[in-house]
Every structure is written in structure tokens, then in C-alpha cells.
């Protein structure tokens, strides 16, 4: 946790932009360079920055480790379900439920955009957890210290 007030203020100014940039890269992965992994890394970096600047108690209050873990697992499962559905439906010759849309618009590309978002969530949470484990050895310090 950083005490320097300059760093804290700059971070509070900067964080929303970092996060919006990450989300933008995730959402527009099928239209511009980027995609789930790149966007997820940026989002994860913003979470790591938040934790290092504001300390583990504040972060654990905002992002509970168990919920984050569940979110990552649910994202992975959703990914598997969507992809499994696509693979099986391709084998059985079904038509796609959502079409490909108009190329060039945000809501196009079939399942590519949701998949990018899911990968991004998994990557962000994983990177956040890895950094926290490296730094503190556990990710529930706020709970154990009490």
C-alpha cells in the first residue's frame, strides 16, 4: 500500500481510463487489433494497480476473492458451453442461432465478441490473482488478519 498522496490521486484519475481502454479493446476485438487476451491484460493491470496503491483491505472489500474466482470459473464454463454448442451444432448441421450481423458494427461476428469478453474476464482475473499471490502469498489477507 502506497502512502504517497500524489500517486494515489494520479491513480484515481488514471484508473477509469485504463479500465475503459481495456474494456474497449475486449469489446472491439473483432473490429480492430486486440481481443480478449490484450484487453484482459490491461484490465488485470488496472486491478493490480488498484490493489498495490490502495492496499489489500480496500481491494478485498471491493472485489471479493471468492466472487472473482467464481466469476472466472463461470466465464470459463460459459466459454466451454458456447464453444461446445458451436462445435456440436456444426457437426449436426444446425444453423447458427445468432447470425453474423453486418460486418463492421459492434454487434456482429457471431459469438466472437462474447467470447472475447469471456476470455478477457478470465485473463484479467487470473493475472490479478497471480500478482496478488506473488506479492502477498494469499488473496484473502483482509479476512485472515481480523
Amino acid at each position: 500500500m502506497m502512502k504517497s498522496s500524489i500517486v494515489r490521486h494520479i491513480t484515481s484519475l488514471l484508473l477509469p481510463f485504463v479500465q475503459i481502454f481495456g474494456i474497449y479493446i475486449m469489446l472491439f476485438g473483432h473490429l480492430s487489433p486486440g481481443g480478449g487476451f490484450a484487453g484482459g491484460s490491461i484490465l488485470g493491470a488496472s486491478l493490480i494497480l488498484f490493489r498495490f496503491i490502495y492496499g489489500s483491505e480496500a481491494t478485498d472489500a471491493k472485489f471479493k476473492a471468492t466472487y472473482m474466482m467464481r466469476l472466472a470459473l463461470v466465464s470459463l464454463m460459459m466459454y466451454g458451453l458456447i464453444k461446445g454448442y458451436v462445435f456440436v451444432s456444426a457437426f449436426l448441421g444446425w444453423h447458427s442461432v445468432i447470425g453474423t450481423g453486418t460486418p463492421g458494427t459492434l454487434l456482429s461476428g457471431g459469438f466472437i465478441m462474447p467470447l472475447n469478453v469471456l476470455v478477457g474476464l478470465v485473463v484479467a482475473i487470473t493475472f490479478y490473482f497471480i500478482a496478488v499471490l506473488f506479492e502477498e502469498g494469499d488473496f484473502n489477507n483482509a479476512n485472515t488478519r481480523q
Partner: protein
Amino acid sequence: MKALLASILTLTFIGFLLLAIVEMPAVGSDSSIMHNVVMDKYIEDAMTDTGAINIVSAIILDYRAFDTFVEASVIFTALICIMIVLKRSGSHDEK
């Protein structure tokens, strides 16, 4: 001694690989065998097949989506492994 041995090994290795490099098609040439019908199909049909205009995205998430699914599980595997190694036992949520 060890340094000498390592240098010789590395130089031999680099030499071997350079033998292969000599036979490789020139960088940036249009007519090399890699830029074949598979690439043409990706470029021409990616937009109509998948609706994405970023062809790399179309490849990794639609044409070769299975790779990317496995890749997501690589990250997950690494997370679980790191948790095994570094997570302190007996923490709050493990009871």
C-alpha cells in the same frame, strides 16, 4: 570450461539452424509456399463466414477456436498450479 562447452554447443546449434534458414523462402516474398490457398480462403471469406473484419480474431476465435479454448485452459491451469505452490494453507475461505 563449462562456458566453453556451452558456447560450442550453442554455436553448433545455431549453425544447424542456419543450414535450414538458407533453404527457407525469402522474407516478404509473395510467392512462397506458405501464402497458399488456406491464407486466401481466410482473407477472402473471413468477413462473410464469421462477420468479423479483424481476420486474426476470426481465425483464433472461429476457424481455429479449439486452440483458443485450450489456451484459456492453459491460463487456468497456470493459476491453479500457482495457487498450489504459493497459497498459504489454512486460510479463511478454506475451512
